[in-house]
């Protein structure tokens, strides 16, 4: 009841003109960036971040959350209509979506995607809103060892899900943690790795790492890949036709399975919309009633990944609000917006009525954003897909300018622009040598929290490192971390064993 009252109060806030305007802009920006193959939803929130400097906290977070939410949906338009995935998360959508388009069922495919996004977004937001207060009460029991274990779990899952070699992901993560140590140490007040350079004495703000590697670096890579998109947006093919109730009822198991999967996986740090989308598609293929037909152009192949990717948004936002731990690039930017306004997300947000209202306003905004993006998608697909006609070079130039000038605007110093270029170049080198970028970015973001909780644990427990394993919550999280880190290694070893068995059995292959 208490949650419902807070949520209603949140809705009242969301419908204030400025908040609504920010949501509208956010939904539009999210749609535009998720459609362009060169951009993405993380880039969208990165670009929007400088505009939040002069705003109040509520409209800022509403803007960024709306970009995040619609960024998981609009990519389906171009994936289904033109076989152009705006983001990796949209790849599973084109297998069945484009197949339906080729059969002349584009409107139906778009209708399925819309219903899936609506269901995934609303159900997941409702579940996570209900869990927010209990989660924050649970988080209040966290001491330094528990916080360290929670961060450690987040970092290990990011490494495990980085999708490349584990050692490369670990090196990337450690480099991120190392970057976070640059500057003046908070406990002893001594300078570390500053080399007497003024640019480094205040440390490296993680926003610069994030904008540099996800924004500037990503554009460098895209320019280097000479991505060229040629699409004749055809208004006739951009209509949406909803599935009937009978058709929806037939797919009830897919809806339930994918919503649960998206919400749960979304709460796992590192498992962004892309991972949830692929996993949901794979699960549907394996366990779905018509699993063997997936890939030939059936609605299950659209519903499963679309529900999961939209459901993952609430799964990511709520741990950020309740624990203060961002699990993805987009939530890291949202955390940056909180910090820029002098608010630290975490369980203490729920302790006073004013900040609790902010939390529930954000939750309410997510409900409105889901409905809003679906309405906008239904009415304006033909307008939104026009973004594809903007030349890539022009788009790249504009995004680079947003990254550089946005960095300058943060502290009015050119040093931050140099940092953007340095980290952007590093991201391009990472891509060249197959090092994943996400672990480094999350390492730089979570590094200070990890070091702080590690130091406090060591001071409180007199250098007894076993405390991370002997305390029940911390120990449980550490075991989960070990399992998540071992899983890809075990999977790789099993795959290797299978390959060797095949090679022995069929030496001519």
């Amino acid at each position: 009841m208490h949650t419902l009252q807070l949520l209603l109060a949140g809705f009242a806030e969301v419908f204030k003109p400025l908040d609504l305007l920010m949501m509208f802009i956010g939904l539009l920006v999210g749609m535009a960036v998720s459609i362009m193959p060169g951009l993405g939803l993380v880039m969208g929130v990165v670009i929007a971040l400088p505009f939040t400097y002069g705003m109040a906290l509520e409209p800022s977070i509403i803007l960024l959350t709306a970009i995040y939410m619609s960024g998981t949906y609009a990519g389906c338009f171009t994936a289904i209509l033109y076989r152009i995935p705006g983001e990796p998360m949209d790849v599973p959508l084109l297998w069945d979506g484009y197949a339906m388009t080729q059969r002349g069922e584009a409107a139906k495919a778009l209708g399925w995607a819309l219903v899936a996004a609506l269901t995934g977004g609303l159900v997941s937001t409702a579940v996570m809103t209900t869990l927010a207060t209990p989660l924050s009460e649970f988080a209040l029991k966290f001491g330094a060892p528990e916080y360290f274990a929670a961060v450690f779990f987040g970092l290990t899952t990011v490494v495990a899900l980085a999708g490349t070699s584990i050692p490369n992901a670990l090196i990337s993560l450690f480099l991120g943690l190392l970057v976070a140590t640059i500057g003046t140490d908070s406990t002893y007040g001594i300078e570390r790795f500053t080399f007497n350079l003024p640019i480094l004495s205040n440390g490296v703000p993680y926003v610069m790492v994030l904008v540099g590697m996800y924004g500037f670096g990503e554009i460098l890579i895209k320019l280097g890949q000479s991505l060229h998109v040629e699409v004749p947006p055809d208004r006739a093919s951009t209509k949406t036709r909803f599935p009937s109730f009978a058709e929806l009822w037939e797919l009830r198991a897919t809806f339930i399975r994918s919503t649960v999967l998206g919400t749960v996986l979304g709460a796992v740090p590192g498992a962004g919309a892309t991972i949830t989308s692929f996993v949901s598609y794979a699960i549907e293929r394996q366990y779905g009633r018509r699993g063997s037909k997936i890939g030939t152009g059936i609605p299950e192949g659209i519903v499963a990944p679309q529900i999961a990717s939209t459901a993952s948004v609430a799964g990511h936002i709520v741990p950020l609000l309740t624990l203060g731990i961002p699990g993805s690039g987009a939530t890291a930017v949202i955390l940056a917006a909180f910090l820029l306004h002098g608010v630290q997300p975490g369980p203490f947000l729920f302790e006073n009525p004013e900040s609790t209202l902010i939390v529930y306003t954000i939750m309410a905004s997510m409900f409105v954003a889901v409905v809003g993006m679906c309405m906008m998608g239904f009415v304006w697909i033909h307008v939104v897909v026009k973004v594809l006609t903007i030349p890539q070079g022009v788009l790249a130039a504009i995004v680079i300018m947003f990254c550089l000038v946005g960095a300058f605007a943060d502290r009015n110093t050119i040093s931050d622009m140099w940092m953007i270029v340095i980290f952007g170049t590093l991201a391009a080198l990472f891509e060249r040598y197959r090092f994943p970028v996400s672990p480094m970015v999350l390492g730089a973001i979570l590094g200070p929290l990890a070091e702080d909780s590690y130091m406090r644990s060591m001071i409180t427990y007199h250098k007894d490192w076993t405390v991370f394993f002997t305390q029940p919550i911390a120990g449980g999280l550490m075991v989960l971390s070990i399992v998540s880190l071992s899983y890809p290694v075990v999977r790789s070893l099993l795959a290797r064993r299978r390959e060797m068995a095949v090679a022995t059995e069929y030496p001519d292959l």
Partner: protein
Amino acid sequence: MIPYALVFGVAAFLLYRANHFEFTAAADQIGPDNWPKLILFMIMATSAFEGVRRLLTARNIRSGPAAVPIVESPFEREHADMRIVLTCVAASLVYLALFEIVGFFFDTLVFVMALIWIGRFRRFWTALAISAVTTLLFMLVFMRVIFVALPIGIGPFEWLSTSLMRLLGVH
């Protein structure tokens, strides 16, 4: 192999620096060097392990078919052309070097043009118009809406920038 050797070398150097942090730690407590050293040890161990592993794998490939590929991402991307990437980085470095001398407007105008050209858009007048509009919009939004003091340059550039700002209504 080279990236791992490089990472190992940098980590070893930073470890040396971390050993020379000057501080007085309380008795029975860890110092500010503990956490960075822990990270640096892990970087060195991981890069040494992976470097050696790749070296041995490369030898196996040369000597027979026993090499096994590492697990790769399900959505691998094509490599970026490093010449284009480096050109773009070089343009950015020049842009930043001239940022406070030439001022935001002229520096950005040329930089945006350069980026559009690097992005293979070769219609000169259209590119010039786009970069002029983009630069002016950035000036308007950042100087008038977000109140950021973008550099106006020195000497004649300062005079030109201030005249332009006056035209845009920026004070």
